[in-house]
């Protein structure tokens, strides 16, 4: 079980390359061993669905940015949370928006958590730390 857990990926849905790079570096600092998969837009994110259906391991947690090209993050969230195979995957919305409506909508659609991306890198490191600790270690993912 633990090995399986260790091999389950973390899916990062982020369009900004800077943010992608920084996030990866932040997780690297944590010495995260789980693979981090990146989807650069909504379409790519949703493209994982068939793969999961095909039997690929489900991610431990999905980190979802809301402002995505092509298909918006909330749309992706909605689709995931309504699809039987993916609806129980924990989704942490990781976005720079603090807007009420985004928060409300995200939770309504079934997000498990909503984190505002700090600009300060130290804070961001802390966030990555917390995500790792909680979702990758502490949390018991669905099977």
């Amino acid at each position: 079980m633990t090995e399986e857990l260790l091999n389950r990926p973390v899916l990062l849905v982020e369009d900004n390359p800077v943010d992608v790079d920084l996030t990866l570096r932040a997780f690297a600092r944590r010495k995260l061993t789980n693979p981090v998969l990146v989807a650069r837009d909504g379409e790519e994110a949703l493209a994982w669905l068939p793969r999961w259906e095909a039997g690929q391991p489900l991610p431990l947690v999905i980190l979802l940015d809301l402002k995505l090209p092509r298909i918006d993050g909330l749309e992706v969230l909605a689709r995931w949370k309504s699809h039987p195979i993916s609806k129980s995957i924990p989704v942490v919305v990781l976005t720079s928006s603090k807007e009420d409506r985004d928060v409300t909508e995200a939770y309504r659609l079934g997000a498990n958590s909503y984190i505002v991306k700090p600009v300060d890198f130290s804070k961001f490191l802390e966030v990555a730390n917390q995500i790792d600790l909680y979702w990758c270690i502490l949390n018991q993912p669905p099977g």
Partner: protein
Amino acid sequence: MASDMQQPDTRTTPGARLLPALRRLCGLLAAAIGLTALLGWFADFPLLATFGSGKIPMAPSTALFFLLFGLAASFLDRIAATGRLARLLFVAGAAAATLTALLLMVLSARGIHPSAEYLGLPISGMVNGSPIGHMSPLTAFCFVLAGSALLTGLQAGPRHRWPAAAAFCCGGLVSLISFALLLAYLLGAPLLYGSGIIPPALSTSLAFLLLGISLQIVAGPSAWPHDRLASLADTRTPYVFALIFILLGAGIITASFLSFRKHEKEYRLGVEQQLSAIAELKAMRIADWLSGQQRQAEELAANPGFVLRLQRWLEQGTESEREIVLSRLTALLSIHGYEEATLLDSGDRVLFNQGGQTLPEELPHGMLARARADGRVMRCDLHRDSAGKVRLTWVIPITTPPAEGGRLLATVLFASDPEQFLFPFVRSWPTPSRTAETLLVRREGNQALFLNPLRFQEDAALRLRIPLRETTIPAVQAVLGKEGVVEGLDYRGKAVVAALRPVPGSSWFLVARMDMAEIYAPLRERLWLMVVLLLALLLGAGAAVLVLWHRLEHAHRLALFSAAAEKDRLYALELEKRVAERTSQLAAANRELEAFSYSVSHDLKAPLRGIDGYSRLLAEEYHDRLDNEGRGFLDNIRSGVGQMHELIEDLLAYSRMERRALHSDSLDLPSLVRTVLAECRAEITRTGAVVRTAVPAITVHADREGLTMALRNLLENALKFSGNSRPVAIDIGARSENGTTVLWVRDNGIGFDLKFHDRIFEIFSRLERAEDFPGTGVGLALVRKAMQRMGGRVWAESEPGRGAAFFLELPENAITP
């Protein structure tokens, strides 16, 4: 729009300027008439007081009253405005005048005329039986009314309608009475002349009319309701209506005047014709009678048998003829109704006399001689005999026939009593009449002699003489040869209309005359009726005009009102439409702004993350390859990023505060304060600040997020600007008073100069340098914006170096969405 119905300022409209000027003018004119009359009396020029001869003049007392009352009415407003003393004096004076008038009225009505009314002038005389120089009771009554009008008019004002109405009525009554009097004068038959009451003079009536108008204007504007007056002043229709009324009135008066005059002419003509007819008839009849008598007398002289007998008696002494002659004479006496018969012989000795004593000496001088010389019967005109009786004597000279020489035998004198036929006939009048009379006059020297007994002077016959220079007397005019109808004064001094005719065949003139008073009596009655009718017509016309005007006004106002109401309705509809438009526009703008700030926030922050991240990574992973300076550079980069981030956050918060909908929450202040303290706990601990709270359990209705944010900002500022004071002491308190709640945050930090009080609440405005105190300068602007939107306010008190206190005030009810 409701503003259409607002009342215009009546002081500036032409109607309101006109009335006081009119009042002053009328009052002054009335006073002027009085003054003129007084001057006339003092200068012994009564025409100034009469305005026409034959009319009664204005009494000096009346003139004085007019002077005083006229001036009072003119300057009533000045007196009222001067002061209490002036008012008191005026009231006393007016009351005294009114009481005096009342006294005079009572006295005059009883026929007592105090000579004080003469005001020291020597006045005497009468006009039409009324003593001049005294106030008529009707005049006194009008002065009582005028005095009352002045006294009540002084009290009149927009809030005192009853005195104003009373003054208006009194003034109106005066105007009405004077109008009636003037009408009567105009129509030529002035009222009360010839009655027992002293009539008011023409000048008095005119002055009363002016005074009445003036008094009505004194009270008028106050008696009318204010809004009526306003509508009166802002349309032109009242002037139109007033004009219509005046024209109507003028038309009615003119028509009635013309009709009356025509009627009067016709009537007069009828009377004149009647008089002429009577005069003609009588003159002819008298002439006939005279010639008849003459013939009778001549018969005797032409009777040959009589002449023969007389001849025989007188020249031949045949006594038997004497008896026959005398009995013949006696018979003739009774047959012809002579009073006396006298027989004179050729030497004027009385041979026979019966019935009286007409002695030859009593006959007018030379009459006998002339008769004898002519040999014709002569009439000895009316004369008085020795007994004083009036006689008409026929002198009949009896002469022998011309064949026998034509010498005078005797003279027969027959004297008849005019009362037998002449005088009764003259006296008779076909219709019963009070004053009608016929006169016979003849000329004697330069006098006119009245021949018959007069109706109003019994024994005037052959006694009353009037010198011929008195040509106003119809008898004189008749004697002077005038024929036809004349007007004049008779022997009594009364005005008469007379028809004059000479009696043919005599030296007599016949005057058939009637008093003017009697002639005009029916006309006068008709005049009274006409005046009453006229007044009623005028009043009726006035009332009709008023009612019509009122109706029109009403309809006009209704139309205005409904037009205004319609306008209002349309306007309201328009407004609603506009509001709906604007709301949707606003909503759209808001949404755009939100989207804008949303993407601003997102897109601006992304590169910041990059800058901060990479500079941090650089600092950490290339740490040993950087010297202190390099590391310093990286620190600066990161601090810049931090500032940028804060600024973006603050701006976003400010924008959100502007846009977001407010909620009215029931907030418990103590717990709110605790929340904020909890949020700032880290900073509080870091600075080691001591925060004391003294917040009573007040509940406010406000927007939670807004108030929380405002309080948080203030607290952060207090912590930030603490300066060097140790320990940092912060007090948070609240108090509720007069429906507002005040919350304050007090610190012992660096404070600020109060001259910057307003500036610190502006966005981006900072008092301190950025390196000394971090911050974006948005915090207090945010607080102000939040408080503004909640309907409250924020202010500060401070002294540099001695801390600052910031106050938040919340109204009782916050703005609800």
